[in-house]
């Protein structure tokens, strides 16, 4: 890029100033405070703008903007014209002083091209950066070469460092080594897991500690859940045992109350019983010496006597009854005396047999009667049905089946004949057509021949045209006329043949019609009969004819069957008459009259009376035997009864009582007395056992005490439920044993519950809340993560930079070596012959005379200045864009140079100006003079 001219509208002290530059060396001369720095800043500002380069988004003005506000005018800015390497000329318009002021770029033709350049978010258009390949701050450190300050380098800040800085960062103030050290310091400040006092390890330890704490708490929480369950289980167990204890205690109290109450009741009953017994003994007045041992014998005798008396009464009653029955049987037998004969003989069986035969024949006769009636009904029905038939079916001689068959056969024969005749007629018709066609074609050909025969003669003689010779015309005409005559004759013959054929066809058609007429005659007659009988279809008509024929045959059969039935019936009536007379005689012997209507009844009466007579006869014999046996038994019992009565009386006399009842009463009183005495002794023993040497009153007092005791908690006092844990009412001993058992279990359960409660209560006593741990852990992890990321990032940056630095050194040092050497050797006026820059940016120079290598640090200040000057150009070569050489502003770089060195420097600058545009700012007159001596130097004087 070459700056060709500029127009300063207002910038510091400069106002409305036009300056022209050339592509090579330009020397801007001015006295101190003459505006050199102002122009330099103007040019930098025009190229890179007024905004701070380190803020991409914000529009913050560089500090110099305020400093260079125009002194004498309002307009702050200007125009710079430049020419790019590709030949394009660009106008740069800028205003300064306000944040929103922007650059405007135009081509030489006036076209605005600002938008063609990249723009930063704060609005800055990156024009110079795009073309020169370096940002503002880099241009300011590399593109502007100020007075050499090598002399100010001191101590550790060796020239080597500066070279390295310039070569690597473009800024001699910016040390890569220091940058690396700073990153390393930061890394060290974070530390690692091997440095226990550094944040990294501390954060890691804290995370580990908190994780352990959280794990412990989680474990404790799991235990806590178990303890909660244990506590609940213990509480449930305790509650259950308490309920059981209350229940068993209630059962125990209840058992005690029950037992004491029962004892009191029993003692009271015993006491009462003793009192009753003793008073009963007094009242009883029984004899202890009464001969009670005879009671059994007496009772037996009494029993036997009473039994015998009762038996005797029964036998006597039975005998009376037997005699009564005997008398009644005799009377009844007398009433049926007429049947005595029947009972002895077989007359009855004969009468029965006749009656059975009589009944059988009666049934047969009735059956015949019914058959006759049914047959008569059927005959009448058939006669009616035949009388209702149409007239065609009334004549039994008419065989309609045959007639129909004959009609069909005739019709079929006629049909066959018709077919033959029709075929013949068809043959004749086709012969007729052929004859007619032959006749027509022959007529047509004859006409054509006639025409062809006449035509040549007409042409020749009518029109005078001599087409053919005359002989040929006549011959041909005669021949064709002959042919025409022959054809006309043929046509007439064919017409005659056609007339004959037509006659034949008519006779065939006539014969065909008569055959059809004859063949359908019987069919028509049959149709007529069917129509008169009301039938449409022949099948229905023939079916009806068949039915009529069948009905007539059936009627004949029925009439012959009816005659047979009537004869049979008359024969049965005769047999019945004979049997009736036999039966009437038999019944008359038993005194029974009969008629055909009551014959069965009378036979039944005969048989019933005979059966009755036989029963009465056997009954009479049995009664006679029974009466005799009863009489003998009566006598036997009467003797035995008398003996028993005598023995009873002797026993009563011995006991001194009158009746057996008195004997028994005395025995009972004596036995009662003995029982009461035994019971009294037993009661007395039981009372002593139950009272346990306590009086009844003492027992009552004890019951009152038990009743005063209340039920234990948890069990309603009025509850009737004795003890839910036992399926029965326990006694005191059982209840006491159970109570003891439950009580000991409850003590153990309470202890266990108390332990569980205590454990739950103090579960988290020495622990922080899980939430607290989680919060601290989250922060610690976040902090550790941040440190870890920073550590990794720093390590990465350090590693990358170190690697880059090594690469840079290896690549840059030789490049720089070449750049520096070619300039330095010109400057040093052949005192040195070689420059060497090693990869550590140590600079060595070889003396021409001695051939020794010397370190740059060991050179004179002036040589160092020269070396530094060469180095700056070398760095500019390295950093700037090769395709677009960067203009270089030199701000009094040779302040410490003497006139010789100044001359050499001008020489170097002249050479340098061939590669890039140089703007040398100076106030030195000697330099101006040297420049004036040079031909290619553009001198700009600021006034």
């Amino acid at each position, binding site marked *: 890029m070459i700056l060709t001219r500029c127009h300063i509208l207002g910038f510091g002290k400069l106002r409305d100033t036009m300056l022209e530059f050339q592509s090579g060396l330009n020397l801007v001369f001015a006295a101190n405070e003459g505006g050199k720095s102002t122009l330099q800043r103007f040019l930098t500002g025009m190229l890179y703008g007024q905004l701070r380069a*380190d*803020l*991409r*988004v*914000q529009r913050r003005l560089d500090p110099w903007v305020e400093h260079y506000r125009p002194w004498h005018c309002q307009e702050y800015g200007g125009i710079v014209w430049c020419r790019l390497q590709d030949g394009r000329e660009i106008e740069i318009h800028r205003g300064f002083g306000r944040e929103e002021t922007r650059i405007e770029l135009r081509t030489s033709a006036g076209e605005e091209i600002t938008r063609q350049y990249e723009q*930063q978010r704060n609005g800055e258009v*990156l024009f110079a950066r795009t073309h020169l*390949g*370096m*940002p503002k701050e*880099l241009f300011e450190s590399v593109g502007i070469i100020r007075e050499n300050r090598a002399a100010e380098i001191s101590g550790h800040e060796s020239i080597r460092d500066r070279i390295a800085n310039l070569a690597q*960062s*473009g*800024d001699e103030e*910016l040390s*890569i080594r*220091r*940058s*690396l050290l*700073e*990153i390393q310091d*930061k890394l060290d400040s*974070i530390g690692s897991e091997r440095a226990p006092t550094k944040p990294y390890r501390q954060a890691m330890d804290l995370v580990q500690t908190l994780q352990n704490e959280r794990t412990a708490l989680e474990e404790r*929480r799991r235990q806590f*859940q178990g303890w*909660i*369950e244990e506590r*609940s289980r213990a509480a449930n167990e305790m509650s259950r045992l308490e309920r059981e204890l209350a229940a068993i205690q209630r059962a125990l109290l209840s058992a005690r109350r029950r037992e004491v109450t029962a004892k009191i009741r029993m003692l009271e009953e015993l006491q009462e019983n003793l009192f009753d017994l003793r008073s009963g003994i007094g009242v009883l007045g029984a004899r202890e010496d009464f001969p009670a041992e005879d009671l059994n014998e007496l009772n037996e005798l009494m029993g036997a006597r009473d039994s015998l008396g009762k038996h005797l009464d029964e036998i006597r009653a039975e005998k009376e009854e037997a005699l009564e029955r005997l008398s009644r049987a005799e009377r009844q037998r007398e009433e049926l005396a007429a049947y005595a004969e029947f009972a002895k003989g077989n007359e009855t069986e004969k009468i029965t047999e006749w009656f059975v035969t009589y009944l059988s024949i009666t049934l047969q006769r009735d059956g015949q009667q019914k058959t006759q009636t049914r047959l008569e009904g059927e005959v009448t029905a058939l006669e009616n049905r035949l009388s209702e038939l149409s007239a065609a079916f009334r004549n039994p001689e008419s065989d309609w089946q045959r007639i129909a068959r004959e009609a069909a056969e005739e019709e079929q024969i006629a049909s066959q004949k018709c077919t033959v005749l029709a075929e013949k007629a068809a043959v004749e018709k086709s012969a007729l057509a052929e004859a007619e066609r032959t006749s027509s074609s022959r007529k047509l050909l004859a006409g054509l021949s006639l025409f062809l025969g006449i035509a040549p003669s007409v042409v020749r003689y009518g029109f005078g045209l001599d087409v053919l010779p005359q002989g040929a015309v006549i011959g041909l005409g005669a021949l064709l006329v002959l042919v025409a005559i022959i054809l006309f004759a043929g046509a007439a013959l064919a017409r005659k043949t056609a007339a004959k054929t037509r006659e034949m066809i008519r006779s065939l058609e006539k014969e065909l019609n008569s055959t059809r007429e004859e063949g359908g005659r019987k069919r028509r007659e049959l149709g007529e009969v069917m129509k008169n009988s009301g039938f449409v279809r022949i099948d229905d008509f023939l079916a009806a004819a068949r039915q009529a024929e069948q009905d007539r045959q059936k009627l004949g059969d029925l009439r012959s069957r009816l005659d047979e039935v009537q004869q049979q019936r008359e024969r049965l009536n005769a047999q019945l008459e004979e049997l009736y007379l036999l039966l009437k005689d038999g019944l008359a012997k038993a005194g029974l009259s009969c008629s055909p209507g009551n014959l069965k009844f009378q036979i039944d009466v005969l048989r019933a009376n005979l059966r009755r007579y036989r029963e009465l006869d056997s009954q009479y014999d049995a009664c006679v035997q029974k009466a005799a046996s009863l009489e003998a038994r009566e006598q036997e019992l009467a003797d035995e009864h008398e003996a028993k009565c005598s023995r009873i009386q002797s026993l009563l006399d011995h006991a001194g009582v009158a009746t057996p009842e008195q004997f028994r009463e005395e025995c009972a009183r004596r036995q009662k007395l003995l029982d009461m005495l035994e019971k009294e002794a037993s009661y007395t023993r039981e009372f002593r056992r139950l009272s346990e040497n306590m009086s009844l009153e003492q027992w009552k007092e004890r019951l009152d005490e038990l009743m005063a005791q209340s039920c234990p908690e948890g069990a309603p006092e009025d509850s009737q439920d004795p003890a839910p844990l036992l399926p029965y009412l326990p006694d005191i001993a059982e209840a006491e044993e159970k109570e003891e058992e439950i009580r000991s279990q409850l003590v153990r359960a309470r202890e266990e519950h108390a332990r569980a409660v205590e454990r*739950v*209560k103090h*579960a*988290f006593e020495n622990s922080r*809340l*899980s*939430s*607290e*741990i*989680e*919060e*601290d852990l*989250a*922060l610690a992890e*976040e902090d550790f993560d*941040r440190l870890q*990321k*920073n550590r*990794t*990032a*720093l390590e*990465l*940056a350090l590693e*990358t*930079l170190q690697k*880059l*630095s090594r690469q*840079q050194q290896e690549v840059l040092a030789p490049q720089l070596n070449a750049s520096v050497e070619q300039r330095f050797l010109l400057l040093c006026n052949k005192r040195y012959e070689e420059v060497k820059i090693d990869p550590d940016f140590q600079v060595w120079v070889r003396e021409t005379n001695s051939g020794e290598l010397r370190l740059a640090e060991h050179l004179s200040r002036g040589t160092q200045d020269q070396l530094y000057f060469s180095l700056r150009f070398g760095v500019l070569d*390295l*950093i*700037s*864009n090769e395709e677009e050489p960067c203009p270089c502003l030199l701000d009094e770089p040779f302040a410490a140079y003497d006139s010789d060195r100044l001359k050499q420097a001008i020489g170097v600058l002249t050479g340098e100006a061939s590669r890039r545009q140089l703007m040398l700012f100076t106030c030195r007159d000697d330099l101006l003079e040297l420049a004036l001596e040079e031909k290619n130097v553009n001198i700009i004087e600021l006034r």
Partner: protein
Amino acid sequence: MRPVRFVHTSDVHLDTSFSGSGFPSRLGDRKREAIRGTFRRIVEDVQNEGVDFVLIAGDLFEIDRITPDTFEFLRLQLERLNPAPVFISPGNHDPCIQGSPYREESWPSNVHIFTEEEFRSVELPDLGVRVTGFGFSRSRLDEHHFERLPVLPDDFFNIVLSHGSDLSRVPTGKSPHGPFAVEEIVRKNVRYCALGHYHQQRQIPNPIDETQVWYSGIPEGRGWDEEGSRGYLVGEITDGAVRIDSRSCSQYNLNTIEIECDAFSTREQILDAILQRRGVSFDANTILRVRLAGTLDPRLDLSFSELEERLAGEALYLQWEDRTQPAHDFESLAREKTMRGRFVRIMNERIASASESERTVLERARLYGVQALSGRGVRLL
């Protein structure tokens, strides 16, 4: 008939952890105590305002974190409400599982806990109200449990109490436990549906019938997505209609203010910008998050500890979120022919091909390297 009043709250999250919000445990302790205080305040409001019954729609506590002390606190507070019935429907954070405090027998007699994953009804005949509730018995419920809600008899004013997620508007990052659509609740004779799970207080639009479906919201904000004042709902049933009012009850509110740093070149300017929002966006009881945005002047030394010292007492707690963009233009720097340019190019290439997790570290490495090469010192993030 006199109006029936009830309180609807949920998502109290007693003993919760604030690890996700980046609170230190000392602040977490204060905030947990504040949650207890808020719950105590709700109980006092119930006592003072003659409320007839209380509905708690889940996440009353966090089952993994609850301590015996908190359970005792809860038991005592609910006992204070006796005889007013308290209905609790366990949610995903306090499911009624084995070992849950809900299975303890020492709850006051006025507390009814819906312990089953079925809708069960409790009738309050004196109030003419039937409360039908559903309890989570696992910490994840993917089923549409409202589909199992039967059509209720219309003889009482029906209230349904449950934890659940309205699928029509699932907040970002919220798991949809107990998902449902409002169509699953309506046309079942339900007059009011008390819900928990979403921490934002809101009514779910119901275009179908008169059923009012409400999330009561969290009564004390828990995270940065729950900023501002929080509260609970008070319902009043009059002649079969219910009117819902919101009550504020939170103690320590969370708030975030964003400070654009583009125009600032000193720390004091940031401080002034924060203090300008005092009284409007925060006060001494606010847990304040200051989000710094924009591009930070590289010359500005952003020392948070110093800023915190200067802001001490202005807010309950200060959290910084540095979202400022690095001042460096890495794309431009990459074009330099210097070592810095080469370094940025290498790092840019590595960043472009790096995974998401590696990118953060690589970007930091690039920043630190450029800072070191710019001679302004490395400022660790």
